């Protein structure tokens, strides 16, 4: 197995790529995809800590947290895509910088 530092660095790279997508993209669906990358990197981190610290005593907390994160992410993506489709019907755009109803 690779040392824990390398696992954490790989996860940090994936998380930073997700942050870059959220900050640079315009389309709401692409932003959601980048958000999913960030969530995946975080749950990978939890699993890495759970697995590397686990030898000798049974500790499933990190793994169960990752499972819950996957469920939350599935709920979040379903709800957010519903909102995106609804917004597209009302405003005929899926770009977050054109959805400016609240902008004064």
């Amino acid at each position, binding site marked *: *197995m*690779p*040392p*824990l*530092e390398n696992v*954490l660095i*790989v996860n*940090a*790279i*994936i*998380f*930073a*790529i*997700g*942050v*870059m*997508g*959220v*900050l*640079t*993209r*315009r*389309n709401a*669906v*692409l932003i959601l*995809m*980048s958000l*999913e*990358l960030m969530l*995946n990197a975080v749950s*990978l981190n939890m*699993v*890495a*800590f759970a*697995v*590397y*610290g*686990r*030898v*000798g005593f*049974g500790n*499933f907390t990190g*793994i*169960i947290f*990752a*499972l819950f994160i*996957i*469920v939350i992410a*599935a*709920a*979040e*993506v*379903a*709800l957010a*895509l*519903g*909102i995106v489709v*609804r917004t*597209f*019907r009302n405003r005929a755009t899926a770009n977050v910088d054109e959805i400016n109803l609240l902008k004064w």
Partner: protein
Amino acid sequence: MSAAEAVYYVVAVVAILSALGVVLAGNIVHAAIFFILALGGIAGFYLMLSVEFLALVQLIVYGGAVTILILFALMLTRARERPQALFGKTRPLGVVASLALLAAFIGASVGTDWFEQTPRGDIEPVPFQELGDVIFTVWIVPFILIGILLSIALDGAVLLAVPDEED
């Protein structure tokens, strides 16, 4: 370097390159395809960390459900019919901010002593049965709550997406 470690780095390169594809691709549908590949890479990470259960859940939930939802959203918002700029005006700032965040994370990972978290010996696979026992005894209340949350969220998504009567 052992064989398992080499496989881990190959999977890492695939996952990172396809994640970059999600963020940088100039075509929305290509980005979605790269997204599927990145999720497959993350399922591979779970396998390498010997958590087979999570790898299966990842493939079913993300590879199946989330990908289909995203492709349908792309189709319903007609993302391909009207080509337009995919990146916002603040793109350079976003790139700089994410690189700064990455530098902070890498600095923290390298600068910490992980001796406590270093396994002595091989990592055993996480047994399905014990995991199920723990979920349905210790974690049963959060498990039920998250089931309720999931059904409420999916009902809300349907309510949001269904057209109004007057439309």
